[in-house]
Protein backbone atom coordinates (compact mmCIF):
# COMPACT_ATOMS: atom_id res chain seq x y z
CA UNK A 1 0.00 0.00 0.00
CA UNK A 2 2.63 2.43 1.03
CA UNK A 3 5.00 3.05 -1.76
CA UNK A 4 8.54 3.25 -0.64
CA UNK A 5 10.54 6.31 -1.64
CA UNK A 6 13.11 4.78 -3.90
CA UNK A 7 14.74 8.10 -4.49
CA UNK A 8 16.21 8.42 -1.01
CA UNK A 9 17.28 4.86 -0.87
CA UNK A 10 20.99 4.36 -1.24
CA UNK A 11 21.91 2.19 -4.13
CA UNK A 12 23.22 -1.18 -3.17
CA UNK A 13 27.00 -1.24 -3.43
CA UNK A 14 28.91 -4.42 -3.66
CA UNK A 15 31.99 -5.02 -1.54
CA UNK A 16 34.23 -4.88 -4.56
CA UNK A 17 32.90 -1.53 -5.62
CA UNK A 18 33.47 -0.12 -2.13
CA UNK A 19 37.05 -1.24 -2.21
CA UNK A 20 37.47 0.37 -5.58
CA UNK A 21 36.01 3.61 -4.28
CA UNK A 22 38.37 3.59 -1.30
CA UNK A 23 41.27 2.94 -3.59
CA UNK A 24 40.15 5.80 -5.79
CA UNK A 25 39.97 8.14 -2.78
CA UNK A 26 43.39 7.02 -1.64
CA UNK A 27 44.62 7.45 -5.14
CA UNK A 28 43.41 11.00 -5.32
CA UNK A 29 45.08 11.69 -1.94
CA UNK A 30 48.30 10.17 -3.23
CA UNK A 31 48.02 12.30 -6.34
CA UNK A 32 47.65 15.36 -4.14
CA UNK A 33 50.74 14.28 -2.17
CA UNK A 34 52.66 13.69 -5.36
CA UNK A 35 51.59 17.08 -6.55
CA UNK A 36 52.75 18.59 -3.21
CA UNK A 37 56.05 16.74 -3.37
CA UNK A 38 56.42 17.77 -6.96
CA UNK A 39 55.84 21.35 -5.93
CA UNK A 40 58.51 20.93 -3.23
CA UNK A 41 60.87 19.38 -5.69
CA UNK A 42 60.31 22.24 -8.03
CA UNK A 43 61.66 24.52 -5.25
CA UNK A 44 65.00 22.76 -5.54
CA UNK A 45 66.61 23.72 -8.79
CA UNK A 46 68.97 21.33 -10.49
CA UNK A 47 71.82 22.16 -12.80
CA UNK A 48 72.47 19.06 -14.84
CA UNK A 49 75.67 17.23 -15.66
CA UNK A 50 76.11 18.71 -19.09
CA UNK A 51 75.65 22.32 -18.00
CA UNK A 52 78.69 24.58 -17.79
CA UNK A 53 78.33 28.00 -16.21
CA UNK A 54 81.00 30.67 -16.08
CA UNK A 55 80.20 33.75 -14.08
CA UNK A 56 78.06 34.70 -11.11
CA UNK A 57 75.13 32.62 -9.92
CA UNK A 58 72.62 34.18 -7.47
CA UNK A 59 69.41 32.68 -6.21
CA UNK A 60 66.75 32.56 -3.52
CA UNK A 61 65.97 28.87 -3.52
CA UNK A 62 67.80 25.65 -2.85
CA UNK A 63 70.10 24.57 -5.64
CA UNK A 64 71.73 21.31 -6.62
CA UNK A 65 74.60 21.43 -9.07
CA UNK A 66 75.72 18.40 -11.04
CA UNK A 67 77.49 20.33 -13.76
CA UNK A 68 80.49 22.63 -13.92
CA UNK A 69 80.47 26.12 -12.49
CA UNK A 70 83.29 28.64 -12.51
CA UNK A 71 83.07 32.00 -10.82
CA UNK A 72 80.86 32.73 -7.83
CA UNK A 73 77.70 31.20 -6.35
CA UNK A 74 75.58 33.04 -3.82
CA UNK A 75 72.46 31.59 -2.15
CA UNK A 76 72.29 33.55 1.06
CA UNK A 77 69.35 31.85 2.77
CA UNK A 78 69.31 28.53 1.02
CA UNK A 79 71.03 25.21 0.71
CA UNK A 80 73.58 24.62 -2.00
CA UNK A 81 74.32 21.02 -2.85
CA UNK A 82 77.21 20.02 -5.06
CA UNK A 83 76.21 16.65 -6.46
CA UNK A 84 78.57 13.72 -7.03
CA UNK A 85 79.15 14.85 -10.62
CA UNK A 86 79.48 18.52 -9.78
CA UNK A 87 82.78 20.28 -10.39
CA UNK A 88 82.98 23.75 -8.98
CA UNK A 89 85.76 26.27 -9.27
CA UNK A 90 84.19 29.17 -7.47
CA UNK A 91 83.64 31.10 -4.28
CA UNK A 92 80.52 29.76 -2.56
CA UNK A 93 78.22 31.68 -0.21
CA UNK A 94 75.12 29.99 1.19
CA UNK A 95 73.20 29.14 4.33
CA UNK A 96 74.34 25.54 4.12
CA UNK A 97 76.62 23.80 1.64
CA UNK A 98 76.64 20.06 1.06
CA UNK A 99 79.53 18.72 -1.01
CA UNK A 100 79.40 15.34 -2.68
CA UNK A 101 81.46 16.36 -5.70
CA UNK A 102 84.52 18.52 -6.19
CA UNK A 103 85.00 22.10 -5.08
CA UNK A 104 88.02 24.30 -5.65
CA UNK A 105 87.49 27.60 -3.92
CA UNK A 106 86.48 29.07 -0.62
CA UNK A 107 83.17 28.17 1.03
CA UNK A 108 81.34 30.49 3.39
CA UNK A 109 78.16 29.30 5.08
CA UNK A 110 76.07 30.94 7.78
CA UNK A 111 74.96 27.58 9.19
CA UNK A 112 76.85 24.52 8.07
CA UNK A 113 79.25 22.98 5.60
CA UNK A 114 78.95 19.26 5.11
CA UNK A 115 81.54 17.37 3.06
CA UNK A 116 80.24 13.90 2.42
CA UNK A 117 82.16 10.72 1.63
CA UNK A 118 84.01 11.09 -1.69
CA UNK A 119 83.42 14.84 -1.57
CA UNK A 120 86.49 16.97 -2.16
CA UNK A 121 87.24 20.54 -1.16
CA UNK A 122 90.38 22.49 -1.91
CA UNK A 123 89.91 25.84 -0.24
CA UNK A 124 89.08 27.61 2.98
CA UNK A 125 85.85 26.98 4.86
CA UNK A 126 84.16 29.52 7.11
CA UNK A 127 81.10 28.24 8.96
CA UNK A 128 79.94 27.77 12.55
CA UNK A 129 79.49 24.04 11.96
CA UNK A 130 81.58 21.83 9.71
CA UNK A 131 81.12 18.10 9.15
CA UNK A 132 83.69 16.13 7.18
CA UNK A 133 82.88 12.51 6.54
CA UNK A 134 85.36 9.65 6.52
CA UNK A 135 86.72 9.33 3.01
CA UNK A 136 86.24 12.98 2.15
CA UNK A 137 89.21 14.98 0.89
CA UNK A 138 90.02 18.40 2.19
CA UNK A 139 92.91 20.78 1.94
CA UNK A 140 92.70 24.28 3.30
CA UNK A 141 91.58 25.92 6.48
CA UNK A 142 88.46 25.61 8.60
CA UNK A 143 87.29 28.66 10.53
CA UNK A 144 84.51 27.85 12.98
CA UNK A 145 84.87 31.01 15.03
CA UNK A 146 81.73 32.91 16.04
CA UNK A 147 82.29 35.48 13.35
CA UNK A 148 80.80 32.85 11.05
CA UNK A 149 77.36 34.10 12.16
CA UNK A 150 77.53 36.74 9.52
CA UNK A 151 79.55 34.55 7.25
CA UNK A 152 77.01 34.33 4.44
CA UNK A 153 77.58 37.97 3.70
CA UNK A 154 79.97 38.21 0.80
CA UNK A 155 83.35 39.41 1.86
CA UNK A 156 83.41 42.05 -0.83
CA UNK A 157 80.65 43.93 0.96
CA UNK A 158 82.50 43.96 4.26
CA UNK A 159 84.43 47.10 4.89
CA UNK A 160 88.03 46.23 5.39
CA UNK A 161 89.93 48.50 7.68
CA UNK A 162 93.61 47.96 7.98
CA UNK A 163 95.66 49.88 10.44
CA UNK A 164 99.17 49.94 9.20
CA UNK A 165 101.85 50.65 11.74
CA UNK A 166 103.59 52.92 9.27
CA UNK A 167 100.64 55.29 9.20
CA UNK A 168 100.68 55.82 12.97
CA UNK A 169 102.24 59.12 13.88
CA UNK A 170 105.31 58.61 16.03
CA UNK A 171 104.84 59.68 19.61
CA UNK A 172 107.71 61.61 21.01
CA UNK A 173 109.39 59.64 23.74
CA UNK A 174 112.86 59.62 25.12
CA UNK A 175 113.89 56.42 23.38
CA UNK A 176 111.29 55.35 20.84
CA UNK A 177 113.66 53.26 18.75
CA UNK A 178 114.73 51.12 21.68
CA UNK A 179 111.11 50.29 22.50
CA UNK A 180 110.34 49.40 18.91
CA UNK A 181 113.26 47.04 18.75
CA UNK A 182 112.14 45.25 21.90
CA UNK A 183 115.10 46.28 24.03
CA UNK A 184 115.04 47.09 27.68
CA UNK A 185 114.76 50.78 28.32
CA UNK A 186 116.33 52.45 31.28
CA UNK A 187 117.45 49.17 32.73
Amino acid at each position, binding site marked *: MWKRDEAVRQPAVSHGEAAAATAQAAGSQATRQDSYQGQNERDVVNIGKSVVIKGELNGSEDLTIEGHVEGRIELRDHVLTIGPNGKIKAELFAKAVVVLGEVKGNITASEKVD*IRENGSVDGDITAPR*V*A*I*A*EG*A*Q*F*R*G*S*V*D*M*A*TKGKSAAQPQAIKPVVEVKPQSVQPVTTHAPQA*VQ*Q*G*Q*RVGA
Partner: protein
Amino acid sequence: MLWDTRKDRNEVAAPAATLNEDGQIYPTKALRKFLGSLTSREAPVLMDLGPVVGSNITFFGERLGCKILVEDLYSELDRHSRQGGTPFAEKITSRLLKHAPSSIDGILCWNFFDYLDLPAAQVLAASLTRMLRPDGAVLGFFTTVTAVDAAFSKYVIVDEGTVKQRAYTSGSRKRTPLQNRDIIRMFEGLKVAESFLLKTNVREFLFRKPVPEALDDF
Protein backbone atom coordinates in the same frame (compact mmCIF):
# COMPACT_ATOMS: atom_id res chain seq x y z
CA MET B 1 131.84 -3.05 20.36
CA LEU B 2 129.23 -1.53 22.57
CA TRP B 3 128.25 0.88 19.81
CA ASP B 4 127.94 -1.99 17.34
CA THR B 5 125.54 -3.73 19.67
CA ARG B 6 123.40 -0.61 19.99
CA LYS B 7 123.39 -0.14 16.25
CA ASP B 8 122.23 -3.71 15.75
CA ARG B 9 119.50 -3.29 18.31
CA ASN B 10 118.24 -0.19 16.59
CA GLU B 11 118.15 -1.82 13.21
CA VAL B 12 116.02 -4.72 14.28
CA ALA B 13 112.75 -3.81 12.68
CA ALA B 14 109.69 -4.13 14.78
CA PRO B 15 106.89 -6.16 13.28
CA ALA B 16 104.70 -4.28 10.85
CA ALA B 17 101.87 -2.49 12.54
CA THR B 18 98.51 -4.00 11.89
CA LEU B 19 96.25 -1.03 11.73
CA ASN B 20 92.86 -1.82 10.38
CA GLU B 21 89.97 0.44 9.48
CA ASP B 22 88.69 0.50 13.05
CA GLY B 23 92.10 1.51 14.34
CA GLN B 24 93.78 1.02 17.67
CA ILE B 25 93.31 3.15 20.74
CA TYR B 26 96.31 4.64 22.52
CA PRO B 27 96.66 6.87 25.55
CA THR B 28 98.20 10.31 25.20
CA LYS B 29 99.38 12.66 27.89
CA ALA B 30 100.65 15.58 25.88
CA LEU B 31 97.42 16.32 24.00
CA ARG B 32 95.75 17.61 27.16
CA LYS B 33 98.73 19.88 27.81
CA PHE B 34 98.65 21.05 24.21
CA LEU B 35 94.99 21.99 24.51
CA GLY B 36 95.65 23.67 27.84
CA SER B 37 98.29 25.85 26.25
CA LEU B 38 95.81 27.17 23.68
CA THR B 39 92.59 27.57 25.67
CA SER B 40 93.48 31.01 26.96
CA ARG B 41 93.85 32.38 23.43
CA GLU B 42 91.00 33.93 21.56
CA ALA B 43 90.38 32.26 18.20
CA PRO B 44 93.79 30.62 17.92
CA VAL B 45 95.13 29.35 14.61
CA LEU B 46 95.93 25.65 14.60
CA MET B 47 97.88 23.78 11.93
CA ASP B 48 97.45 20.04 11.45
CA LEU B 49 100.18 18.27 9.47
CA GLY B 50 98.03 15.16 9.27
CA PRO B 51 95.11 14.33 7.01
CA VAL B 52 91.72 15.84 7.63
CA VAL B 53 89.65 14.05 10.27
CA GLY B 54 86.14 15.42 10.61
CA SER B 55 85.76 14.59 14.29
CA ASN B 56 89.09 16.28 15.08
CA ILE B 57 87.91 19.44 13.32
CA THR B 58 84.75 19.38 15.42
CA PHE B 59 86.74 18.63 18.58
CA PHE B 60 89.13 21.54 18.16
CA GLY B 61 86.41 23.84 16.87
CA GLU B 62 84.27 23.23 19.93
CA ARG B 63 87.11 23.31 22.45
CA LEU B 64 89.13 26.18 21.11
CA GLY B 65 86.91 28.02 18.63
CA CYS B 66 89.94 28.02 16.43
CA LYS B 67 90.83 28.27 12.79
CA ILE B 68 92.38 25.02 11.60
CA LEU B 69 94.78 24.73 8.69
CA VAL B 70 94.92 21.22 7.27
CA GLU B 71 98.20 20.59 5.47
CA ASP B 72 98.24 16.78 5.14
CA LEU B 73 101.99 16.38 4.64
CA TYR B 74 101.51 12.60 4.81
CA SER B 75 99.84 12.58 1.41
CA GLU B 76 102.52 14.95 0.09
CA LEU B 77 105.24 12.57 1.30
CA ASP B 78 103.34 9.66 -0.19
CA ARG B 79 103.12 11.46 -3.53
CA HIS B 80 106.78 12.39 -3.30
CA SER B 81 107.85 8.81 -2.61
CA ARG B 82 105.93 7.62 -5.68
CA GLN B 83 106.84 10.43 -8.08
CA GLY B 84 110.25 11.48 -6.80
CA GLY B 85 111.60 14.80 -8.04
CA THR B 86 113.17 17.45 -5.87
CA PRO B 87 114.16 16.39 -2.36
CA PHE B 88 111.30 16.55 0.10
CA ALA B 89 113.14 19.04 2.28
CA GLU B 90 113.22 21.48 -0.64
CA LYS B 91 109.55 20.94 -1.35
CA ILE B 92 108.72 21.83 2.24
CA THR B 93 110.34 25.23 1.94
CA SER B 94 109.54 26.04 -1.68
CA ARG B 95 106.00 24.73 -2.15
CA LEU B 96 104.51 23.59 1.14
CA LEU B 97 104.03 25.44 4.41
CA LYS B 98 104.25 28.96 3.08
CA HIS B 99 102.56 30.61 6.00
CA ALA B 100 103.74 33.90 7.40
CA PRO B 101 106.24 33.93 10.27
CA SER B 102 104.68 33.94 13.75
CA SER B 103 101.19 33.28 12.37
CA ILE B 104 100.31 29.92 13.97
CA ASP B 105 99.38 29.30 17.61
CA GLY B 106 99.52 25.53 17.69
CA ILE B 107 100.96 22.83 15.45
CA LEU B 108 99.99 19.17 15.47
CA CYS B 109 102.81 17.10 13.96
CA TRP B 110 101.51 13.70 15.13
CA ASN B 111 104.19 11.14 14.14
CA PHE B 112 105.15 12.70 10.81
CA PHE B 113 108.81 13.17 11.79
CA ASP B 114 109.21 9.38 12.14
CA TYR B 115 108.93 9.07 8.36
CA LEU B 116 111.56 11.71 7.53
CA ASP B 117 115.31 11.46 7.38
CA LEU B 118 117.20 13.82 9.66
CA PRO B 119 117.95 16.56 7.07
CA ALA B 120 114.31 16.78 5.99
CA ALA B 121 113.19 16.68 9.63
CA GLN B 122 115.52 19.57 10.43
CA VAL B 123 114.18 21.67 7.56
CA LEU B 124 110.58 20.98 8.57
CA ALA B 125 111.25 21.73 12.24
CA ALA B 126 112.95 25.03 11.35
CA SER B 127 110.01 25.94 9.13
CA LEU B 128 107.49 25.17 11.88
CA THR B 129 109.51 27.10 14.45
CA ARG B 130 109.49 30.14 12.18
CA MET B 131 105.72 30.01 11.70
CA LEU B 132 104.92 29.58 15.38
CA ARG B 133 103.77 32.59 17.37
CA PRO B 134 105.48 33.44 20.66
CA ASP B 135 104.00 31.25 23.40
CA GLY B 136 102.66 28.91 20.73
CA ALA B 137 102.91 25.13 21.07
CA VAL B 138 104.05 22.21 18.92
CA LEU B 139 102.96 18.65 19.64
CA GLY B 140 104.89 15.73 18.18
CA PHE B 141 104.97 11.96 18.65
CA PHE B 142 108.30 10.20 18.09
CA THR B 143 108.89 6.49 17.95
CA THR B 144 111.66 4.80 19.93
CA VAL B 145 111.99 1.77 17.66
CA THR B 146 112.53 1.23 13.98
CA ALA B 147 109.39 -0.16 12.43
CA VAL B 148 107.95 -0.87 9.04
CA ASP B 149 104.30 0.09 8.83
CA ALA B 150 101.90 -1.17 6.23
CA ALA B 151 100.49 2.34 5.95
CA PHE B 152 100.72 5.82 7.35
CA SER B 153 98.57 6.33 10.35
CA LYS B 154 96.13 9.11 11.08
CA TYR B 155 95.09 10.10 14.55
CA VAL B 156 91.48 10.41 15.56
CA ILE B 157 90.98 12.15 18.89
CA VAL B 158 88.70 10.16 21.18
CA ASP B 159 89.10 12.51 24.13
CA GLU B 160 91.83 14.61 25.72
CA GLY B 161 93.66 11.53 26.96
CA THR B 162 93.02 9.07 24.16
CA VAL B 163 93.66 8.90 20.43
CA LYS B 164 92.72 6.29 17.90
CA GLN B 165 95.30 5.43 15.27
CA ARG B 166 93.89 4.42 11.92
CA ALA B 167 95.46 3.32 8.66
CA TYR B 168 95.84 6.04 6.06
CA THR B 169 97.17 5.53 2.51
CA SER B 170 98.78 2.29 1.47
CA GLY B 171 102.33 1.15 0.85
CA SER B 172 105.19 0.22 3.12
CA ARG B 173 106.44 2.99 5.42
CA LYS B 174 109.58 2.85 7.49
CA ARG B 175 109.67 4.71 10.76
CA THR B 176 113.09 5.59 12.08
CA PRO B 177 113.65 6.83 15.62
CA LEU B 178 115.31 10.20 16.07
CA GLN B 179 117.57 10.74 19.05
CA ASN B 180 116.24 13.00 21.79
CA ARG B 181 119.12 15.41 21.30
CA ASP B 182 118.39 15.63 17.56
CA ILE B 183 114.74 16.35 18.25
CA ILE B 184 115.58 19.10 20.71
CA ARG B 185 118.26 20.59 18.46
CA MET B 186 116.12 20.67 15.37
CA PHE B 187 113.49 22.70 17.23
CA GLU B 188 116.09 25.26 18.15
CA GLY B 189 114.37 28.36 19.47
CA LEU B 190 111.65 26.37 21.22
CA LYS B 191 111.64 24.99 24.75
CA VAL B 192 110.59 21.51 25.74
CA ALA B 193 107.55 22.22 27.91
CA GLU B 194 106.57 18.59 28.46
CA SER B 195 107.88 15.22 27.38
CA PHE B 196 106.49 11.78 28.09
CA LEU B 197 107.74 8.29 27.36
CA LEU B 198 104.74 6.04 26.99
CA LYS B 199 104.57 2.27 27.30
CA THR B 200 103.65 2.20 23.64
CA ASN B 201 107.25 3.13 22.71
CA VAL B 202 106.18 6.63 21.83
CA ARG B 203 107.86 9.80 23.06
CA GLU B 204 105.51 12.73 23.22
CA PHE B 205 107.08 16.18 23.05
CA LEU B 206 105.34 19.46 23.67
CA PHE B 207 107.42 22.45 22.62
CA ARG B 208 106.63 26.05 23.45
CA LYS B 209 108.01 29.16 21.82
CA PRO B 210 109.33 31.53 24.46
CA VAL B 211 107.82 34.98 24.64
CA PRO B 212 110.45 37.62 23.93
CA GLU B 213 111.56 39.34 27.13
CA ALA B 214 110.84 42.80 25.79
CA LEU B 215 107.18 41.91 25.33
CA ASP B 216 107.00 40.64 28.90
CA ASP B 217 108.41 43.88 30.22
CA PHE B 218 106.19 45.93 27.93
